[in-house]
């Protein structure tokens, strides 16, 4: 009973709990927090079970017709390797961040009622992202994208100060324009194919695309602009630094780590499942993605270098790292695409952990700027150690998860014959070292006066440690997750 319905139950459980929380507004926040953590654990367990199920079925995707109506009449869910990969990201990052949030969020939000709302939004976001992972229906994608967008903006606005509200509004404005583009793109695809189910749209589109090449091109560019805005692809990233640096720490972590990836996964689904690799290459969309990715890597890293505020620096770093994923989407070979997917997963973990560590440092020591970091290595040894490991991972040092992604992106770019792309990947790593190493250097090696230990609480440390363990384990034994990413890339490329 549960097993057959697991794909939909994952989403429904999250949604259900999200709407259950407002009932507890008058109770102690501890109940809400316990509920959220339990649900996140359930989701993790369910995803792992589903992963096992698919592996046993020879990795064929599970098709789930909602309400018993098969596609193209009904809405269809399809859980393949890509969905599992993204669901694992949601659960694997969502759980530690939720644990982190349970500690101190009441104090930061200043009221019990708002704690319930905060976690409602948190779970809504998770539900929307999970929905994006499993759905096989274009219109469903739109709905989930919208739910995710509104929850993201509201999470930013949850920290009720002028900066956050301004950032949230700016985010909402640009994201809504982005949604407009996505919706228009879906409309155009529907006009051409008469289908909203991705699989059916693909069959129709592959026949009709050459009759309406301009419409298809328009639709694809609408999708790239729309999802690019939401995923902060370089010239469209303007909202991100404000929003991600102004939000509460757990919100920043989840936004930078997961939300951005959700849109990219959705774009990947649309581009690869509906449009298909052959058509992408025929319309040279892949070149454009590659180019935009490279520009994003360089520009995002350079902008990050110029920031002195720690959280802004991390936010701009996300812009650069998103570039890597887009670059991978444009390589059009299995290694590169799998590398990009693995990179997305590892970046989700790393960036979430970096934001958590940065937030802990800022809230404990009050030091918001990189130039003020002197002595933090002594004040908060564990947090700073975690920050260091994750920074190294983001730079792509071997034995940490970031390296596996970069390594395979490099392999993919060389396989695709793009020497420039491989140079940009390396340049991005170097620039990443350029903006993260000074933080570590200042924290550890620049002499500071007398320092006292201000280490953060046990719960926060343990949540960050979970993420750090993921980073290290994935770096040393990437096997299972890499196989999943490889299979997902194979599915997308139709190999």
């Amino acid at each position, binding site marked *: 009973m549960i097993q057959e319905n697991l794909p939909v139950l994952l989403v429904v459980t999250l949604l259900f709990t999200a709407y259950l929380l407002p009932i507890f507004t008058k109770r102690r926040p501890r109940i809400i927090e316990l509920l959220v953590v339990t649900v996140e654990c359930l989701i993790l367990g369910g995803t792992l079970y589903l992963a096992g199920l698919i592996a046993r079925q020879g990795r064929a995707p599970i098709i789930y017709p909602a309400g018993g109506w098969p596609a193209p009449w009904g809405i269809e869910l399809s859980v393949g390797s890509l969905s599992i990969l993204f669901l694992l990201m949601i659960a694997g990052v969502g759980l530690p961040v939720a644990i982190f949030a349970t500690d101190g969020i009441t104090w930061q939000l200043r009221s019990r009622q708002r704690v319930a709302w905060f976690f409602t939004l948190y779970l809504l976001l998770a539900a929307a992202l999970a929905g994006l992972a499993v759905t096989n229906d274009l219109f469903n994608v739109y709905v989930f994208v919208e739910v995710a967008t509104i929850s993201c903006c509201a999470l930013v606005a949850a920290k009720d100060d002028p900066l956050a509200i301004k950032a949230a509004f700016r985010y909402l404005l640009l994201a809504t324009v982005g949604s407009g583009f996505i919706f228009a793109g879906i409309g155009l695809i529907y006009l051409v194919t008469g289908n909203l189910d991705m699989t059916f749209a693909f069959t129709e589109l592959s026949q009709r695309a050459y009759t309406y090449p301009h419409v298809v091109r328009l639709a694809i560019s609408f999708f790239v602009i729309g999802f690019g805005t939401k995923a902060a692809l370089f010239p469209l990233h303007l909202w991100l630094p404000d929003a991600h640096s102004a939000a509460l720490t757990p919100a920043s972590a989840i936004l930078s780590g997961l939300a951005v990836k959700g849109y990219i996964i959705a774009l990947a689904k649309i581009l690869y499942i509906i449009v298909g690799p052959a058509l992408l290459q025929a319309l040279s969309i892949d070149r454009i993605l590659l180019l935009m990715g490279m520009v994003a890597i360089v520009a995002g890293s350079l902008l990050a270098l110029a920031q002195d505020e720690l959280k802004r620096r991390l936010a701009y770093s996300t812009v650069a790292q998103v570039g890597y994923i887009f670059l991978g989407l444009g390589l059009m070979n299995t290694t590169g695409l799998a590398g990009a997917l693995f990179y997305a997963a590892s970046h989700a973990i790393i960036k979430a952990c970096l934001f958590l560590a940065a937030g802990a440092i800022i809230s404990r020591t009050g030091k918001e700027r990189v130039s003020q970091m002197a002595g933090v290595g002594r004040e908060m040894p564990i947090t700073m150690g975690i920050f260091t490991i994750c920074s190294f991972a983001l730079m792509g040092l*071997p034995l940490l998860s970031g390296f596996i992604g970069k390594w395979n992106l490099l392999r993919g770019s060389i396989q695709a014959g793009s020497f420039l792309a491989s140079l940009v990947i390396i340049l991005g790593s170097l620039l990443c070292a350029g903006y993260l190493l000074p933080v570590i250097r200042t924290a550890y*090696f620049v002499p500071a006066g007398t320092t006292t230990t201000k280490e953060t609480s046990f719960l926060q440390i343990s949540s960050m440690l979970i993420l750090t363990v993921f980073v290290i384990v994935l770096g040393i034994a990437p096997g299972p997750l890499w196989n999943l990413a490889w299979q997902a890339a194979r599915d997308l490329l139709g190999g």
Partner: protein
Amino acid sequence: MSFMLVGILSALIGGVIVALLPEESQKLRRGIVLATCLLSALSVWQVAATIFSKTSPLNTLEWGIWQFRADPLALSYALIAGTLWVLTAIYSYGYMPQDPRQRSFYAFFLLSMGITLGIAFAGNLLVLYIFYELLTFSTYPLVIHRRSEEALRAGKKYIIYSLVGAGALLVAIVATGFMAGSLSFGTGAILDQTATSGKTVWLLILFVIGFGVKAALMPLHRWLPQAMVAPTPVSALLHAVAVVNAGVFGLLRVVYSVFGPDLLTKLGVRPYLLVLASFTVLAGSIVALRQDVLKKRLAYSTISQLSYMLVGAFTLSSFGLSGAIFHMLNHSIIKITLFFCAGAIEHNTGKTRVSELAGLERTLPWTFALFGIASLGMVGMLPVSAFWSKYYLMKAGLSSGNWPLLLVFIISGILNACYFFPIVIQGFLGTGPIRSTEGNKETYLMLVPCALLVVFALVLGVYPNLAWSYLVDGVVGSFF
């Protein structure tokens, strides 16, 4: 469990243990450091014993991508590094006792040892890269150990150069994997011997940039003189032995295990490589002449001497390779002695400049005597061992038809004499303003390692076969 892993892991674990000990427990820390160094070094000797006793010519270990390989080339580097690390540990006990940050120093000291052995025993390019990259980060805290503005600036430069090199290396390795389908070192070269396209040349350029940074190949050398702000044991070990030799070792691997002499000959790149290395030999010596700070003079001398080995390697002949390997050994022994002496002078008198050394022989007689003998060696005079390696390098130049190389070595030798002898002459005969009456201030802890090394260099000079018949012949035998 292989002794290779014992050597690597014991140093790494020792480093972690030292990092966890509190700053105050100095005696315990010293004990652990010496014990782990010895254990690691002995494991390396054990591996060497099995390989050179011909019972098993090759020792490999494999676990997924983690391939390790002890062939003669690997051992030549591992033996040098492992043995000298023990001596440096002893030396540092005399040099460091007043230092306020010994915990961090010794922790990274041991970690670097394990990582260096990892580079030596790496069985494929990926493992080599991993340890090569880790070496940068484990030695960085040692370079900036003094935490002064100058040290931090030097450290920044070191990191930037190393990371750029590592980036180039990573691209090169990925491209190699794509072109050859394998990254493992074997008996032959990795790359297809017929792949003589422009891409292969680009690949070589990337490799040379990648390892050339650590081998201080000009114009990638600028970090090395600046990194001399580090405490002397660090300078001695890392910037005369481990780090720079890692670059040379990497290039040897590239030339003989990745490309292979045949492919390089076919590509026609040998003249360019030789010109690059010869230029560094001469330019390094010339710049060294102008340095007044003793350690910087030694640093430029190192840059020059490292390229001796590269010249040898790039001649692609068996004489060249044997000269390069033997020079790696001799240079390490002699240069570390010179650094130890410079450190002793600085530690005991506070003098860092050549112009201030006049008459110091009276305070530090043994130190200067040892420095003098080592200088002779560096210039290439009998009975110090470096004579033989230079002899073979010249022979390689002649036999491969590159007679200008002979000229390069001779000029460089004269330049070596020009910048080393004045130091010794100053020390013994100079009548500087200071005539210390305090008598001998030398400590055994710093003197004994130097003396041991000098004795070893002399023994090798008289009986070069001691190392030659095992080490050098082994390496040459495995590639030609």
